[in-house]
């Protein structure tokens, strides 16, 4: 059915990016993982601009909210306003547990919202749950990787 899926992780903290990659590496499925560290890069990646002109579109985006250059909320909004890109599920993965952030994210079209746990094990478990659900259980719109 589907071969390797691709995830784009957007997080400005390289330590967290590393953790995410570590977590996903421990999953059964070996997905392709791309990462960017600011909002502008994220938009360029997804809209295939500049250096990313030949970039394949990811099947899933894991997006932090507080990003330099362009804020995660702005990235989300742009992404979900585009007729092609809005099909891609976006998981907000953020330290913020503020109600306002959660509600706002859903209003902007986020598919779901997961708080970054403080505990390492829980952090890994959260990322693995995300991978398990979106790549193991849910059906995603057929991307370009196939």
């Amino acid at each position: 059915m589907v071969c390797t899926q691709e995830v784009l992780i957007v997080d400005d903290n390289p330590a967290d990016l590393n953790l995410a990659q570590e977590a996903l590496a421990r999953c059964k499925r070996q997905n392709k993982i791309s990462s960017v560290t600011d909002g502008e890069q994220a938009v360029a990646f997804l809209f295939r601009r500049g250096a990313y002109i030949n970039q394949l579109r990811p099947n899933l985006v894991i997006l932090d909210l507080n990003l330099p250059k362009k804020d995660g909320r702005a990235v989300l909004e742009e992404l979900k306003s585009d007729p092609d890109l809005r099909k891609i599920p976006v998981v907000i993965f953020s330290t913020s547990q503020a109600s306002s952030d959660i509600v706002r994210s859903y209003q902007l079209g986020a598919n779901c919202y997961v708080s970054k746990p403080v505990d390492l094990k829980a952090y890994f478990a959260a990322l693995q749950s995300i991978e398990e659900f979106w790549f193991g259980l849910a059906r995603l719109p057929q991307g370009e990787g196939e």
Partner: protein
Amino acid sequence: MSIGPTKTETAPVAKIHVLQVEDNPLDSELVQRELRRAGFDFTATVVQTRADFIREVEEHCPQIVLADYNLPQWRGMEALAVLEHENVDVPLILVTGALGEVTAVECLKKGATDYVLKGALARLPVAVHRALRERTLRLQRKMAEHELAQKVEELARSNKELEQFAYVASHDLQEPLRMVASYTQLLGERYKGKLDETADKYIDYAVEGAKRMQTLIQDLLAFSRAGRNRPAQSDVDCNVVMKDVLQNLASSIDESGAVIACDDLPVVAADRMQLTQLLQNLIGNAIKFRKDNTPLISVKVERLKVESARIEPIKIAPIKTELAKNESAKTEATKVEGARIEATKLEPAKLEATKPDTAKPEVVKTLPANGFWQFSVSDEGIGIAPEHLESIFSVFHRLNTRAEYPGNGIGLAISKKIVEQYGGTIWVESSPGQGSTFKFTLPAAIGQAKGASA
């Protein structure tokens, strides 16, 4: 600034300026003589006309006005109108010939402080004394109120800043802390057993330290969040909250075999998340601080009416707003002591909820029209010694070592903050080895019929 009633009725006050409104020089001289005899240190000016009166009031600020009732061109009572117009707090005593009782009462009602008959001038000093003393008290109280308002504003601002600081600090600290904690753990996993024993030990210490910092910061955050924003208040069904709490505590309940018996709980006016936190803290503690047996925890509730005997008023005589008439009013006027503020106006349903075993009065509040519910969470655990019953509600206060019972000692401080935010109180009744009962009050939801629960 110390305020207190003057010691005796006739002790002379500081030099005062008396303004007399009198057209008969003999009468004005008699009045002055009476005042001198009583030991008053004063200067007096006598005026007859309205214009002179106004000028004297504007230019020489008298402390008291002694006015005749009937004057050739105007009436003594008109002087009152002038004083009001000039917006000065100067008592006016009518010193007059025969005055019918009805007229006298009317004058008092219109604002005259007192009246003294010219045929009974012996009464004058006492009347002047009282009028002046009351005026002093009035002025002092006004100043105190103003200072109070300023202090309150300052405190509120400072409080807000501190809370925001605490919130920002703990919030911003979380991320780097998470990095330290996660990576020391990963290091540990990766290299455990591959380096030497010392390295393993060091890694364990580092991880433990980092994890403790994390819980500490989370607790701090929770504590500062508890007072940070006005929470969305709505009618919350406590039974639903209990369900969530029990679910959240599922693993410790399973582990300890705890049995929790719960009354049918009411609907209260509070924020659902805070209520969950509150109940979870208390029940979590009840489970945590258990003895060796199966913890038996019971949650009860009872309705407190506005006049309930459970709420004890503090033993301070009420302050009346009209100081004039009654001499026996032992006015413990307003005190401004740091953050403890006692209201000055006596409103109808003003009572004070005090902890049964403390003498410290809390901030006085008016009760909500619907009254309170009083909740109690009882356990049969290790209990608390009497000397600690109050201090356990302080932040970071722990009575046991970390090895004996985990936790930072902030749960009860948070609970207290939550309860007090709604105008309730929280306290504990306990004896060592006999278990504890934590009680707290919360306002009943609006529109709830007495005793009925949703």
